[in-house]
C-alpha cells in the first residue's frame, strides 16, 4: 500500500514535467527542428561510413584512397557538417507554423537572422561564411536566433504596420510591402545586435554565445555525472510508462549533437577524437541494444531461462521488434512500467553500461564515437561498429555490455518468471 502511494506520488510529479517539456512550444519546435535535419544528417553519415570503409586504405594506393575520399566528401560536407543550418530553418518554420503564420517565411527569416550574426570572414578572406560556423559549433546561437527571430517576426506581423499607399496603387503592390515590413524589421534588429557586439571583446555574437553558454554547457554535458543523471531520468520516466527520450532529449540534444560534431571534425581530419559522450554514445550504446534499458538482454534471458507461458509469449512478441530497438512490448508487457520487482535492474543496468562504455573509450580500449549518426533502429553490433567509425571493437563492446545487462537482470527475471509460472500452475489446477 505504501509502495503504491509512493508510486502515485512520483507519477504526480513526473507526468506534469513530461507534459510541460513535451508541450512547451520552444522545446517542441527544437525537437521538430532536429527531425527536419535528421534525414540529411543520416545521409551525410552514410557517406562518412562509406568513405572510411575499413581496410580500404590498405587495399588501394594512397593516392587512389585520397581521391576516393575527396569524391565522397561533399556528401557529408553539405549535410552533416553544416547541420546547424537545417535545424535553424526547421525551428523557425515549426515555431511560426505553431503561431499560425507563414511558416516558410519564419524559416528563412531565422536563417537570414543567423547568417547576419555569423562571421563573414575567414582569416583574411572576406565574403565567405566559414562552414564551421554553420555546424554544431553555431548550434546554440542558431537555436536562440531561431526562437527570437520567429518571435520578432510574429510580433511585427501582428502589429500589421503597413505603408499607406496613395489611392490608385494596386492592392498587390501594397500587399507585397506587408510581408516586407516584418521581415525587414526583424533582420534590422539582428544587424544592430551584430554591430553592437563588434564593439565588445567577444567581437561576434557567435563567439559570445559559444564562450558564455555553449562551451560550459557542453563541457558539463560531456562528463560522466551529467550523463548518468540524464540516463537515470530517461529510465525513471519510462518506469512510469512515459517516453523518456522524447522528454530528456529535448533538453540534451543540442549538447549531444555539438559534442558529436566535434568528434566528426576530428575524425575527418584524422585527429584524436575529443569526446566520449556524444549523441551516438547514447543512441548506440544505450538505446541501440534492444531499445531503452537495453531490453535485448531481457529478451535473450527470456529465451534462456523463461518457463512461464506469459514470459515466453512476450519473448516471441518482443523479440523481432527488439532487434530493431523497438521495445514497447517489453516495457508494457513484462511489465517494466510500475513494476517494483524490476526497478533495480532497470535503473542499475544502464548506469553500469554507461560507466563501462565510458571507461573503455576514455582509456582507448574501444575507439570513441566517430561523429556519424546511425539510425537508432540499426541492430546491435552493426550499430556499435558503425558508431565508432567502422571499428569491430564498438560491436564487441556492445556484446560485452549485453552480457553484463543479462547478469544484472538474471535474478530479477527469475523471480518474476517464477511468480508467473506458479500463478499459471494454480490457475490450471483450479480449472
Amino acid at each position, binding site marked *: 500500500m505504501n509502495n503504491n502511494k509512493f508510486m502515485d506520488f512520483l507519477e504526480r510529479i513526473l507526468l506534469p514535467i513530461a507534459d510541460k517539456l513535451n508541450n512547451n512550444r520552444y522545446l517542441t519546435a527544437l525537437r521538430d527542428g532536429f527531425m527536419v535535419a535528421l534525414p540529411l544528417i543520416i545521409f551525410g553519415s552514410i557517406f562518412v561510413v562509406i568513405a572510411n570503409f575499413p581496410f580500404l586504405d590498405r587495399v588501394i594506393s594512397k593516392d587512389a584512397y585520397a581521391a576516393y575520399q575527396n569524391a565522397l566528401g561533399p556528401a557529408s560536407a553539405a549535410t552533416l557538417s553544416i547541420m546547424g543550418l537545417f535545424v535553424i530553418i526547421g525551428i523557425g518554420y515549426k515555431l511560426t507554423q505553431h503561431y499560425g503564420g507563414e511558416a516558410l517565411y519564419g524559416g528563412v527569416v531565422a536563417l537570414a537572422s543567423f547568417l547576419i550574426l555569423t562571421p563573414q570572414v575567414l582569416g583574411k578572406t572576406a565574403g565567405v561564411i566559414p562552414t564551421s560556423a554553420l555546424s554544431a559549433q553555431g548550434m546554440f546561437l542558431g537555436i536562440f536566433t531561431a526562437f527570437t527571430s520567429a518571435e520578432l517576426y510574429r510580433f511585427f506581423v501582428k502589429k500589421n504596420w503597413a505603408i499607406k499607399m496613395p489611392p490608385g496603387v494596386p492592392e498587390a503592390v501594397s500587399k507585397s510591402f506587408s510581408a516586407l515590413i516584418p521581415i525587414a524589421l526583424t533582420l534590422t534588429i539582428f544587424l544592430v545586435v551584430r554591430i553592437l557586439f563588434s564593439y565588445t571583446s567577444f567581437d561576434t555574437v557567435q563567439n559570445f554565445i559559444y564562450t558564455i553558454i555553449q562551451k560550459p554547457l557542453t563541457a558539463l554535458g560531456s562528463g560522466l555525472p551529467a550523463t548518468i543523471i540524464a540516463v537515470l531520468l530517461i529510465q525513471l520516466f519510462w518506469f512510469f*510508462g512515459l517516453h523518456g527520450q*522524447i522528454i530528456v532529449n529535448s533538453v540534451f540534444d543540442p549538447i549531444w549533437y555539438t559534442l558529436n560534431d566535434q568528434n566528426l571534425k576530428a575524425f575527418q581530419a584524422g585527429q584524436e577524437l575529443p569526446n566520449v559522450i556524444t549523441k551516438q554514445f547514447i543512441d548506440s550504446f544505450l538505446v541501440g541494444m534492444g531499445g531503452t534499458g537495453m531490453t535485448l538482454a531481457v529478451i535473450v534471458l527470456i529465451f534462456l531461462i523463461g518457463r512461464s507461458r506469459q514470459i515466453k509469449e512476450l519473448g516471441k512478441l518482443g523479440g523481432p521488434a527488439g532487434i530493431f530497438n523497438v*521495445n514497447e*512490448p517489453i516495457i508494457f508487457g*513484462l511489465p517494466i512500467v510500475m513494476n517494483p520487482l524490476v526497478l533495480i535492474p532497470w535503473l542499475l543496468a544502464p548506469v553500469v553500461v554507461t560507466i563501462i562504455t565510458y571507461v573503455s573509450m576514455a582509456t582507448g580500449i574501444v575507439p570513441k564515437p566517430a561523429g556519424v549518426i546511425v539510425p537508432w*533502429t540499426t541492430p546491435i553490433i552493426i550499430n556499435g561498429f558503425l558508431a565508432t567509425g567502422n571499428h569491430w571493437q564498438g560491436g564487441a563492446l556492445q556484446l560485452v555490455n549485453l552480457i553484463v545487462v543479462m547478469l544484472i537482470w538474471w535474478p530479477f527475471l527469475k523471480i518474476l518468471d517464477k511468480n508467473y509460472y506458479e500463478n499459471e500452475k494454480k490457475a490450471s489446477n483450479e480449472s
Partner: protein
Amino acid sequence: MKKILLACSSGMSTSLLVSKMRSYAESVGEEAEIWAVGQDQAQEELKKADVLLIGPQMRFMKKKLEKYAQEAGIPIDVIDPVSYGRMDGETIYKKAIALIEK
C-alpha cells in the same frame, strides 16, 4: 470504412500494433484503414481519421492533440498499457470502433 490512426513518438511501436489490428479486422471480415504516425505528424494526419489512439508512453501528448481532435470532430484516447504491452490487436480495435460509434 473506418479510419483508425495510431500515434506514438516516431510511429514505430504503434506500427507493430497496426499489423495486429489489421489482421484482426480481416479475420472478422471488416474493412478498416489503420495506420501509425510519429508525434510530429499526428496533428496533420488526424484530419483524415475517424479516431485517434495514442500510445501510453506518449500520453502527455493527449492534451495538445485533444484540441486538434475536437476541431476535426473525432474522438481521441490513450491506449491502455496492458493491451499495449500484449499488442492486443483485438481489444484495441474494438475499443477504436466503440469510440467511433459512440
